[in-house]
């Protein structure tokens, strides 16, 4: 299970960030923010390679002794980042992809909501 997930808007402002352990929230904010660097780098790389069908899943963005961050970017430049514990070896690439797909679907549904203005911070109970 992921320890933190985050949605980052296309202007790189956080839309939504939720983590299991509230005391680590600040730390995860820092990690998320740094992840934007990696996401941007990966996007540039994939643009250079010039493949027509863009892979939304970016793979591993960042890893440290404690955590690993995986990235996903939608066509509208919404970045989704999942942070998992480094010691968690049970989650394979496929499972991470599945999580991203679900998160992406959830975000799509949110955007379909007429009461939500795209770009606003997401509030959820």
């Amino acid at each position: 299970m992921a320890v933190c997930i985050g949605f980052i808007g296309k202007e790189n402002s956080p839309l939504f960030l939720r983590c299991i352990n509230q005391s680590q929230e600040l730390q995860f904010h820092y990690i998320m923010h740094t992840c934007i660097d990696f996401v941007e780098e990966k996007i540039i790389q994939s643009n250079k390679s010039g493949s027509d069908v863009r892979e939304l899943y970016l793979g591993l963005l960042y890893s440290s002794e404690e955590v690993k961050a995986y990235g996903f970017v939608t066509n509208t430049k919404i970045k989704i980042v999942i942070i998992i514990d480094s010691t968690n070896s049970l989650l394979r690439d496929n499972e991470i992809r599945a999580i991203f797909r679900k998160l992406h679907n959830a975000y799509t549904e949110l955007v379909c909501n007429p009461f939500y203005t795209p770009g606003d911070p997401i509030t959820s109970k």
Partner: protein
Amino acid sequence: MCIMSSKTQPVITYAGDTQLFSTLESATVQGLPQETVEWKRSYGRPPRAVTLSASFQPFKIDNDGFKELSKGLKKLSGAEVLHTYWVECQDIDTYKANVRESIQTWFTQIKQVECSDWLIILVENSDSKKSKQILPRTTVLDKIKNDFGGKTTERCIAVVDPVKGETKSSESWQTFLFRLRQALMAAFSRTLTKFEETVRTQRERRNELNWNFCNYFLLQEELAFAFEMLGLYDEALVQYDELDALFTQFVLNSAVGDAPDWLLAFQATPNNWSGVCLNPKAPFNTELRQKIQNHTMSVIDFRNYLFARQSALLLISSKPAEVARRCLSYVQSYMYELKLLNVSTVDGAIPTWILLTCLQVLSTCQSHVGATGNQSMESFALLWNMAKDKLYELGRKCGLLPGASVGSAELHCVVTLSSGITDYGDDSAVRPTPVDKLKEALSSSQAFTKHYLELSELAMGTFKHCGRLRSARLIGRDLSRFYLQLGQPQKSVSFLLDLLRGYQEEDWPLLRIDTHIELAEVFQKIGDRVRFIEASANIAAYPALNADTRMKYFSHLLQSAQDEFRSINCSSMMDLVDIRIHFDTSLEEPCSVLCDSIVRAEVEVVNHFPGPVKCSEVTITVKAVKNANDESKQSKAAGKKSVADKSLDSKAIEKPGVLAAKAKTSSSDYIPIKEQLHLKQDGSLSSVALVCPSAQQLLGRKVSHGLLPTELSVIKEEYTHKLSVKDVNIVPGVNRLTLQMKADHAGTYVLSQFVACSQRLEFIQSVNCPKVSITVVEVMPSVTVIKTRDDLLAGTDQEVELVIRTGSTAFQNEKTLRLCSSRGLMINLPKTDSLFQRELDLVLPPMAAFETVSYPLKIRADLGFTASKEATFVEHKLSVHCPWLSKTPPLLDLPLNVYAPFTVQYKLHTAYTKKFVNIHVQGLTPSSRAFEFQNPNVLLPDATYKNPALSKLEWRNLNGSSQTLKISQDQPANYLWELCGAPAQYDLPLLKAEFSVDYRLVGTSDWKLFSFNFDIADYATLFTVRSRVEPVKGNDFLRAGSLCHMTLTVSDVLQQASSAALMYEVLADQALWAVCGRTAGVFSMEGSSKHSVTLDVMPLVCGFLPLPAVRLSRYIPAEQKPKETNRKADLAAATLPRLEPFGAGQVYNWSKAQQVHVLAAPSNNGPTSFDTSTS
């Protein structure tokens, strides 16, 4: 390397003529790897071109080996893969004699060995061949092939001894080498396949109890060696990677309680943490391999060995970036493994190891990376960062951080750690080596600081270099903390501000506040009160923070507010949620208020501070955009245009709406919108639409380059007005305030900033979005004239009303209006008993705004113009001198159209010598406003009578005595006088007469005198004309179509005919009369008083026909000078004959309007009559 390569090389045995072979051995060993050979591989793997080298050993039967081989291939290195038999045999006889037998022995021996690949080489001497018979039946080679070759005759090769150095021999030598390579490759491949089989079997047995990873490791590593020997570095790397994965899997499994015994050996406490050794000159650490063979290594040693091997292979295939990349995951997974394996280590050993590994890898890679620059930078940056972090950790453990105290525990730590670091004795390494650096860093606090800063600088620089600004800034955060510990807080400010800017730009509130908290601490240390306040304000206003922290900083803020003057951008602290301005909806302009009124704005402010803020004043500053004059002009122009547009008969009519009019005045704030009326062809309305003409531009995609800029600091802008409220306590949460402003100047204003002043602090926020504008409209005082009745009439007193409206400004004092009328117009204020005059002063009392007063005003316009026929009205004007007007002179012209009530015409009538004066009065007013006339009179001025010729002139009144006439549009009046006593003579002077009459408007009491001057000319009759039309003789009647005579008789009335020549002209209507012969003629009256002319005329139709008209004119011959009259002719005209018409009263025509009766044409001889009748 040498040791290793000889081990891994496959072995070829030799037998037979060993002496012969020794001469050839070196040439063979050298020649073998000179060319590549294609390796066709099993299991569908792609063929590779490889270089093979081999070492030779004499063939011997080894019993141990025999046993081993029977179990399967245990060892790859040093395995005998190919057996060769070398023989030199010149002729068949020798071969048959002994060679054959020895080959046979060798052949049976190799059959016993598992590896049974063989080659028999027959070395020939070229000159010996020559000595033989030219065509031997069979050669030795054929024989050998026959005896041993079986199906594989290519295993028997003949080679010419290359020592002889002939062309033929070198060619045969190359063929031999090629054959040898092929054979060796095939043999080696077979061996390798067998070995792989062994490895696989071994791996399958990994769960057995007596299986040991170390043994397996060494076994599979041989495979890697073999691939490395073949130059297949990627294949070799795959072997290591497989081993790596296998080991990792074991470790992971051990975590769930499945730890095999051999793994326990790995849990030994390491005593060396010098990191990975990546000495390019010694890619093979025998010492460590020995430990593996002895099963005495720790996991740290094993990992070091494995990573060093992998790195060496990667470096050989020139992938230094990959080394750096792997290093990261290697270090991380390694730490994880240590945790899983429960390896107890000396405190600080692991960070030391990581640090050294990172530095080692970095220094190695950077020396390799050279030109391949950027792609590896990212990994480098991460490595630097990790090294930096680990050094910090070590510093903390060893008490080297600034300000830390060094106790015995810390000293012990330094000593222990230093003992575990050894250099690998690589003298060629660049000094200082990572180990040297670490030792130095641990030696003293200063050295530590220096190294730490250096590492941070490198990490930060590398991150920046590869474009990872956020990561670079995050290092700045660590650095700022370090500087803070170092007691140099001012150095950390720039790092923190940089961070803050980044977080603000991308809107990360939590991180922003965290940075603010750190900044607050720093500013407090520096003593920068001003910026401390700002940071405190930001922290206090952040709702997600815990209440204690917020209150703490809030109290800081309130304290500082007393003595520091500071403007703070408060967009995140006091949020201006809503502004509502009460506009005057009664005004035409949108969003406008009246000048001099009080503008009220209701403002909703959300206070995010945890406590109430007492504000001495809350204001919203207002800036003027344009002054009122420009705008009113422009909007007027726009208004006019709309009217013009409307009159066009086009299918779509556009009319700028209110918004459009505004759009011209204040460019970007409004969207221009036009009203469009679509008309059908018959002109009726089809549809109405609102159109935005610049929709293309407005709806165009904007480059989304970001959010609204949030500025760090704000400056209070200049302003002209402010909406304000004093002494407010802004409580946490929503506050509703009512702000006021006096609108004292007309114009358009834009709200600019929200300012809340609390003690010496100013919380400022720009009111940018949406832009709110106020238009202050000034209504000028106005003066108008209202007519009381339909039209103003001249000649009689008319009442109008002077209306004065004050507009938006009150008249504080009395004001004097001076009224001036244009010529011919008199005015009078009935209230003041003054006379009619052209100028008068009107004193206005003080008046309130929008008050209206009206004054009755009497005007009297002259009737003088009524004589002219054209003008029925005169544009008079009333000029009002208004002191409030800005122009000079402050005159306001009010037009007054005064209409004539009647017109008067004069006409002179003649009856032979009698003259009558007719005055025709035509009313112009409707009968409801008729005029009454009485006492008409005609007078000649007295001077006229002084002329003796005119002294007898007198008027005979032909009008009714004292009748009052009523005239209106429908009812004209005529007055008639006979002018008697006029002398009968030429050249009478002009009579200037005056007609006067009393008149009044029906319903009024006063009679007024109206006089009308006119000139009477030609009041003496000079000639009379009489014309008759008679039938020709013999005819009794006039008939159409038959000639008749027309007789003109001109008589001189005065009997004193001068020598003047006259000319007559008959002007017949050509439809009625045809004049035969001349229609005009000149004659002279000289000597007679009468002159007759007879003309032939022919009536063309029957009926009562008017007689042809006759015109008499004075004829002036060519040479004769014109008569001395007031008419002046120039000399050129005098040379030609010309006519001078008589005045209207000078010639009397008797026959005017006479008619004759003309009968029809004489075809029917009916009775005819002749008759003249006077009408």
